[in-house]
């Protein structure tokens, strides 16, 4: 831990403390609340996001419990009761989409890892980064307030005209989500500038790790799509507060225009959710296969392709909502195109593993689960993108199952995998590997048990968002609920061993997995200044020849690549 002040220059505004790490350099609550350090902000995002994930998850448990019996176990018998059910699934959707899936992978892992990966001392605009975080917190608080005043019951999509008519506190919720969107824009903007301007010497574009590329693609969508959501929500607020009439057919407006606007953001938004996950999976697979990633440029380009194609497919949400047949056909065609870059990624991951020295550590198990679950979710997405099948399956549980395979089985699983992967770097502690693997298997079983039966009932015609259902679906619904309980148990177990690792965990070495990206080149956890001396990059991100496992450290160390010893390394 040599001093970092010399290289920062004599004009530095803040002296960076020497010794220790970012967690203990700067004490007291104020040093956290007003921190400009991307790692601390990332950590605060992580804690807030996991809190919201817990709330959203418990709402999901309520939904699954309700659906144990055909008439509803919790809410049944009255209009009010069914309205409460609507409120529960609406809040589940809003919390999970706007407060977990969109902001947390970039906000928590992206914030922490991205500057480390490109060899930067921080993101380009640290104050803006903190502002993003507080906008996120404020938006989340407004959502909670609206819930206490009168929880929204529109579904997370806020379709008009119901969202204009319902007596619940839609405006509060919309303004909260507006702030969340603003937070998302600023994060994306910050990352784009960071990647453009703050790369270490020698860190050329095609030397950046795939997670950085995935974050770059994500940021483009965040910056280019979220403003449209912002204005759409403002228009809906104006509709409710002032009666402007743009989306209100009673005043000559067009409700379908709302759907177009909404999905112009919200379809690209699902790529905001999945792209960082794909980046995480790419990092994990190359490290735990001890092989450079296969088809690096294809993986990079497919991220950008997904980001761009994602902008021209929103109409596939409106196939049965009064869109013209021509547009239906065009949007269906464009939707199929998304499958191409997605498949490119999956094939490249598989090719990376081929003949690799695969170690089935916890992060790798999550990455493998991701590949399986995401493939199921992706293929059913193609089914839904096809016009003829979509008309039948529209608004059934088939859609719910597809979406949850991609979001739960894709984004959340990859995020949890990334959390385990970078846990030693973030906290400097190792977790219990055995429990980690058991939890991953439990989650894999739980997710499949929860969502696969929903494909079947959906194909048989069970509509989504209903509080009750026909008795013939009950066996599937019971299986689904049992799966949800298994997931709950897995997450509680995970919370247990992760907290335990913070208290009692073994100290983590600098590089426990033998990764070759820059984020593993400093001590765990890093110091506030990130790098003791500025790294100079001379080659691509993935190379495993010059690394050797050191049993005393419990981690990997660099060895000089002497040709005679090349065979002695773990990789080759």
């Amino acid at each position, binding site marked *: 831990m040599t001093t970092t002040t010399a290289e*920062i*220059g*004599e*004009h*530095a*505004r*803040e002296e*960076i403390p020497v010794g220790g790490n970012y967690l203990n350099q700067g004490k007291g609550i104020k040093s956290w609340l007003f921190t400009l350090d991307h790692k601390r902000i990332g950590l605060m995002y992580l804690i807030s996001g996991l809190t919201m994930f817990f709330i959203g998850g418990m709402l999901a448990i309520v939904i699954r419990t309700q659906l144990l019996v055909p008439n509803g176990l919790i809410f049944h018998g009255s209009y009010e009761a069914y309205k409460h059910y609507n409120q529960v699934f609406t809040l589940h959707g809003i919390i999970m989409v706007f407060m977990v899936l969109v902001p947390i992978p970039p906000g928590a892992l992206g914030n922490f890892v991205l500057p480390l990966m490109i060899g*930067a*001392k*921080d*993101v*380009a*605009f*640290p104050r*803006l980064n903190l502002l993003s975080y507080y906008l996120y917190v404020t938006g989340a608080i407004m959502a909670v307030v609206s819930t206490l005043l009168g929880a929204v019951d529109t579904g997370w999509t806020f379709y008009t005209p119901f969202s204009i008519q319902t007596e619940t506190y839609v405006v509060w919720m919309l303004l909260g989500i507006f702030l969340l969107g603003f937070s998302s*824009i600023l994060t994306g*903007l*910050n990352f*784009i*500038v960071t990647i*453009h*301007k*703050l790369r270490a010497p020698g860190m050329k574009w095609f030397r950046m790790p795939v997670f950085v590329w995935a974050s770059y693609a994500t940021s483009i969508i965040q*910056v*280019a799509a*979220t*403003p*449209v959501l*912002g*204005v*759409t929500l*403002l*228009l809906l607020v*104006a509709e409710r507060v*002032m*009666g*402007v*009439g*743009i989306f*209100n057919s*009673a*005043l*000559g*407006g*067009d409700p379908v*225009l709302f759907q177009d*606007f909404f999905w112009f953001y919200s379809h690209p938004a699902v790529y905001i959710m999945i792209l960082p996950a794909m980046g995480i999976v790419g990092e994990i697979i190359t490290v735990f296969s001890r092989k450079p990633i296969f088809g690096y440029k294809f993986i990079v380009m497919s991220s950008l392709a997904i980001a761009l194609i994602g902008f021209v497919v929103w109409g596939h949400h409106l196939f049965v909502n009064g869109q013209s047949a021509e547009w239906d056909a065009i949007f269906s065609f464009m939707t199929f195109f998304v499958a191409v870059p997605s498949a490119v990624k999956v094939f490249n991951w598989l090719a990376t593993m081929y003949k690799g020295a695969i170690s089935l550590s916890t992060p790798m198990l999550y990455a493998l689960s991701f590949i399986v679950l995401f493939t199921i979710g992706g293929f059913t997405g193609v089914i839904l993108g096809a016009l003829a099948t979509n008309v039948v399956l529209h608004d059934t549980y088939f859609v719910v199952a597809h979406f949850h395979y991609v979001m739960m089985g894709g984004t959340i699983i990859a995020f949890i995998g990334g959390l385990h992967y970078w846990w030693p770097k973030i906290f400097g502690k190792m977790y219990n590997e055995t429990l980690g693997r058991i939890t991953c298997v439990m989650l894999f079983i739980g997710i499949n048990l929860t969502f696969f039966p929903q494909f079947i009932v959906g194909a048989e015609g069970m509509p989504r968002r209903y509080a009750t259902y026909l008795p013939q679906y009950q066996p599937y619904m019971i299986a689904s609920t049992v799966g949800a309980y298994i997931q709950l148990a897995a997450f509680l177990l995970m919370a247990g061993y992760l907290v335990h690792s913070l208290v009692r965990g073994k100290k983590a070495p600098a590089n426990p997995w033998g990764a070759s990206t820059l984020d593993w080149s400093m001590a765990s956890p890093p110091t506030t200044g990130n790098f003791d001396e500025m790294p100079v990059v001379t080659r691509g991100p993935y190379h495993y020849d010059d690394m050797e496992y050191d049993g005393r450290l419990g981690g990997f160390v660099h060895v000089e690549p002497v040709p005679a010893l090349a065979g002695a390394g773990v990789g080759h």
Partner: protein
Amino acid sequence: MSENAGATLTLSSPEEMAGRHLAHHFDTPQQQFDSGKLGMWLFLGTEFLLFSGLFCAYAVYRMLHPEIFLYASRYLDPVSGALCTLVLVTSGFTMAWAIRCAQLGKRTGLIIALLLTIAGGFGFLAIHGYEYFEEYQQHLMWGTNYHPAVTAPQQQVVVAKAMATAGNWHQLDQLGKQGYLVAHSNIAPAAIGPAGPALVQRPAASVTAAPVAAVADQPHNVQIFFGIYFLMTGLHSIHVIVGIILLTYLLVRAIRKDFGPGYYAPVDFIGLYWGVVDMIWMFLFPLLYLIR
């Protein structure tokens, strides 16, 4: 900035000034400036996208209902709109002047240019606010609040029905273009959309109604135009207000002698923002005021 001894600050060289404002995570002032500029451009891109939803709504409704836009834009005063444009363009010029002064380290010029720019912002708000006030008085409001007064000031009443039955569309159209108000028709108000005063209207534009009704009655759903008008200009005015606040912040810092050849990034970036606010108005003015 912690030591605010103004006298010593003015003596500092550009390099010292740049170094004092260099944040810890940048290597050079140039890198910091370039990052800020890229970030600002991205932000301004999101500003355009924020407005793009409204422009899109405008395009959709104008394509579907051109008659509403033709009819309703006659209520807006192009002279006052042109005045707004003139004031904003002038303030854009003074803003560019301010940036140049900051780059050259001319503090007095910077302060004067910023004051003029702020004055331009307030001037725009005053003219546009007066327009809003007039529209409020005439109940030319959005959606449910659209209940226009039957006789608008400065408009003469002519008998449309006779001319319409005579088939003299050209003459009617000319009268309408001169801003004549046509007598209220005896046809019942539209089923949807509040009724208002009747204006001359080409029959081809309103296909659902009978020819006479089309002449004498206003098109349905005129309030859609006013909804879009108030949302677009309102959002723009909010941006002008934010701009004035930012310019005031610059003014305070300029008086404190913060800017010079070594450090003028805030002036440059806020100047870009002000340029975008100008530019959006350049689109709003013809789209809303100059439809005829």
